[in-house]
């Protein structure tokens, strides 16, 4: 499997977001990209997801045989179809209702299979989005600020749940976040990004074994050094 940006440049009207930026994701690692708002981390994720094309350079997201990877993406907003039940929302991605139901039970939405997204809380909706991403048995999971729109207590519960999903079925993943503690709790490796254009200003390897506790002191030390790097 090869997941990498090589010398990628990307500009939006009026600003150069990436300039010859390179990044390599090791298979099996969950990598967190931490940076301030507008530093280009979501652009990096969109390039990996195939939602943006680079102006220059190469984006590589492929298996050993060159085939495209199955991508499970969790966006900042749940991005569910309001007119479809939670079950159908997940099943449209997984193309398998039984798998959809199993994933939804796993994230604690077993009681809400027939509910419309608009009847659920923000945390429940985001859990459905996580279930959708994992229901396709993804080879690469992309998480774009997945919990930043939630209140801290809910976000914390979802982080613990995500860690459990990762323990049950280890994947390669990229997590974009502006929250250093979230990065430290979830990731194997953290790249701290500087802005305009984005560049890697620091790299941390998180060695704490899973399952981790959000209160682990190592995270707070990491938090301090990430903030210092920013």
């Amino acid at each position, binding site marked *: 499997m090869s997941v990498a940006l090589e010398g990628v440049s990307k500009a939006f009207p009026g600003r150069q977001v990436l300039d010859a930026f390179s990044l390599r994701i090791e298979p099996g690692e969950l990598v967190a990209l931490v940076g301030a708002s507008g530093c280009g981390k979501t652009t990096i994720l969109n390039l990996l997801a195939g939602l943006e094309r680079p102006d220059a350079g190469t984006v590589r997201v492929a298996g050993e045989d060159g085939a495209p990877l199955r991508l499970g993406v969790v966006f900042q907003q749940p*991005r569910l179809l*309001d*007119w479809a039940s939670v079950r159908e929302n997940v099943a449209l991605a997984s193309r398998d209702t039984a798998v959809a139901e199993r994933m939804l039970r796993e994230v604690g939405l077993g009681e809400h299979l027939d509910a419309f997204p608009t009847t659920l809380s923000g945390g429940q909706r985001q859990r459905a989005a996580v279930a959708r991403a994992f229901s396709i048995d993804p080879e690469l999971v992309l998480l774009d600020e997945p919990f930043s729109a939630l209140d801290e207590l809910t976000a914390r519960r979802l982080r613990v749940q995500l860690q459990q999903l990762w323990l049950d079925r280890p994947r390669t993943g990229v997590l974009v976040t502006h929250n250093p503690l979230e990065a430290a709790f979830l990731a194997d490796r953290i790249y701290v990004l500087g802005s305009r254009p984005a560049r890697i200003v620091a790299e941390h390897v998180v060695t704490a074994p899973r399952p981790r506790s959000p209160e682990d002191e190592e995270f707070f030390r990491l938090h301090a050094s990430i903030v210092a790097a920013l």
Partner: protein
Amino acid sequence: MSSALAEVRPAGRAPRPRARRPAASTVLGPVVLVLALAGGWQLMASLSDSTLLPDVGEVASAVGTILENGALSALRTTIVRVLLGFSLAFAVAIAAGLLMARSTWARAVLEPAVLIGLTVPGLVWALLAVIWFGLAQTGPVLAVALSAAPALVLNVYQGARAVDPGLIEMAHVFRFNRRVRLTRLWLPALVPFLLSGARLGLSLSWKVIVLVEMFGASEGVGYELNTAFSNQDVAGVLAWTIVFGAAMALIEYGLLRTVERRVTRWRKEAIV
């Protein structure tokens, strides 16, 4: 700070549904309207005492007469023409509207066509359709389709532009195929726009179909109106108008409202 005011809006994306009106006013409102109109008419008729203003009793008996003498068959003919033409316009509008929203070329070509189509009077469509396609089924159906399509296309186009780009990205990432994207993303997102387009398109269709049928069709509501007009039968003209209007109202309330309730079920449940 001004942002504090903006925060008051609920976070959900769906607009808050209107509060349910009490059932009494829903049922009695139209009755009050009809009684007021009939009363006003009766007053006018008795004050003017002219044969050109038949009173309510005469109009009512004319309604009775046409209902006994095959009004339903004329209504059926006209309604079938409208529904055929309207379905044609609907299908074309969904295709053209989506195309306009997705392709700058299609937009550049079709936008002027839609704007011109909107300004062409229904009478012109009626004349041209009759000249080119005759008075059998094709002419009337095409006249209806041509007059309803521009408004529908515009609605579909605006609806398609309003679809959340985040959902389009989501469908792309999870590799929804074309059919799923159309039936589970685009069409449901377009429903409110399709319904308002359907209302507008249907109201234009009724007007045009009567014109076409007046030009010389041998059946249908327009033909019957023309006959009554030729016989200087004012009560007959009014009676046909009333019967036709009632049938249209039935379709609007009975059919469109039912469809609307069904397809926007998820909105209703959101307030529980």
